């Protein structure tokens, strides 16, 4: 209950963030503009709308996750609002989870809004809407949850700016981990070992990317989908656990 109260309060706070609306408007504009672009490229018409639409949702969602996520905790410490919460019977991990859950709710609402925008465009352009699209959207949301946890983890021990940089880097590298492994295959043992270590430590964000499947009408089985979701959930739990450990030891000064 305490976690939920903090989450709902965080959600309310997020709703007042202008950044959120700016990013949301941009996302919707991008999704809408895919219609204009597709006019120019007749043959690839459906593919382009889906590709650009899902890409925009992913990109802007990640920006929200990062730029709202890094402020979740640091703003509370900076404004000292955390003093009154931590002196109440709220364990620090509960505070952290509440903040995380709050942003998750925000991101969920945002994803729904952006997805609705995409559906409207698809419908207006008479693009057939397949079940695969919703699986892709679900995984995009799982990726947001992982990224939010990364941002939260960094923000428990570094400044907001550094957290943003680190999280962005993690996002980019997380999408390249597969390349990391192929790259490592050509190297000596030590380098390969290090690259492999990084590969397993970093989140493999490409796993959550089903854009190709949607565009090329490929299927992903239900059990595969569950496996990917379980991977995302485990990774998130690991990140949140680490963040809690760090947060527990820290001074609020």
């Amino acid at each position, binding site marked *: *209950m*305490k976690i939920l*109260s*903090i989450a709902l*309060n965080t959600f*309310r*706070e997020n709703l*007042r963030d202008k950044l959120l609306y700016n990013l949301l408007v941009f996302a919707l504009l991008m999704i809408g503009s895919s219609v204009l672009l597709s006019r120019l490229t007749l043959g690839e018409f459906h593919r382009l709308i889906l590709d650009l639409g899902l890409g925009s949702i992913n990109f802007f969602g990640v920006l929200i996750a990062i730029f709202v996520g890094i402020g979740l905790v640091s703003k509370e410490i900076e*404004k*000292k*609002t*955390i*003093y*009154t*919460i*931590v*002196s*109440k*019977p*709220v*364990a620090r991990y509960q505070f952290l989870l509440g903040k995380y859950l709050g942003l998750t709710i925000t991101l969920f609402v945002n994803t729904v809004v952006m997805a609705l925008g995409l559906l409207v465009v698809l419908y207006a352009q008479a693009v057939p809407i397949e079940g695969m699209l919703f699986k892709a959207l679900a995984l995009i949301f799982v990726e947001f949850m992982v990224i939010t946890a990364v941002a939260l983890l960094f923000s428990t021990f570094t400044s907001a700016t550094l957290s943003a940089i680190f999280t962005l880097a993690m996002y980019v590298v997380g999408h390249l981990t597969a390349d990391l492994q192929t790259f490592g295959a050509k190297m000596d043992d030590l380098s390969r070992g290090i690259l492999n270590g990084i590969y397993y430590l970093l989140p493999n964000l490409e796993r959550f990317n089903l854009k190709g499947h949607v565009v090329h009408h490929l299927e992903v089985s239900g059990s595969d989908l569950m496996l990917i979701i379980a991977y995302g959930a485990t990774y998130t739990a690991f990140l949140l656990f680490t963040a809690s450990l760090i947060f527990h*030891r820290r*001074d*609020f*000064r």
Partner: protein
Amino acid sequence: MTPSSDLVVQTEQLSKIFRVGFWGKRVTAVDGLSLEVRRGEVFGFLGPNGAGKTTTLKILMGLIYPTSGTARLFNLDMGDPRAKTRLGFLPESPYFYDYLTSREFLCFYGHLFGLWGAVLGRRVDELLELVGMTHAKDLQLSKFSKGMLQRVGIAQALINDPELVVLDEPMSGLDPIGRKEVRDLILGLKESGKTVLFSSHILHDAEVLCDRVAIILKGRLVACGRVTDLLDQGASHQVELVVDRLTPEGLDHLRPLTDKVVMQGDRMLVVLKSQQQVEGALEIIRTAKASLVSLNPQKGSLEDFFIREVKGHRSPPEKRA
């Protein structure tokens, strides 16, 4: 000795060293502080800016960890979650979620104690009444003045009807009426059997409110005890005389006994060093055939005591520098 069950706050050799800047320069904020606050008393925590009051209170609230030493609340170890349910805290110059109205704000904190529904609603109304903010219950905190924030901040600290109320500078930012109201509120808390620990710069308030005070300086305890005892011990009480038509020779005799002489036309104000000088001074005045207009023993104030203590402890390092 007070039995430990009656000790609400207890610190032993508490120290906090901050590391600041790139090189991790050490700043000692609290230095071997041992304090005890007993059940039911109003305890004033005094000291100049940067003395370490806020740091100590933050350690007690579990916001920062001590470098060494221990602190216990209700005879429970640091970090015991049971202590927090019996506690209320108002931070120094608080910032709150300013998009909430005062009602929503208090309800949010109520939820953190598992209070919901009608019970919470009643409690919130009571508290808004208590701090005189009923008129602003549906106003957003972003539209509040500093004093109004301080009041809802105090209400927030009382939401769980705590046994121990810790207030970091509760009077700051309040107008004279507001300060009076907070004083009355603290006395009301004491009356209902609660323990109050507060820090302040306003010594007059501490003097009228507190059963006991502690004065700290550079993180160290320099004095602790009942206000009256502290005032009795250090202070040699001065006496003020007003004398009419004292001859210059008479004044020469009087000078060695005085701290200060102020001429006001024919009259003069004479401040004697202590009560022991009164007899001698009266004798001189009589022989000089001057007339005594008034004689006022000066009650030492906590402020004088404070300034003396702080200056006394400051001078040695200044000499070295």
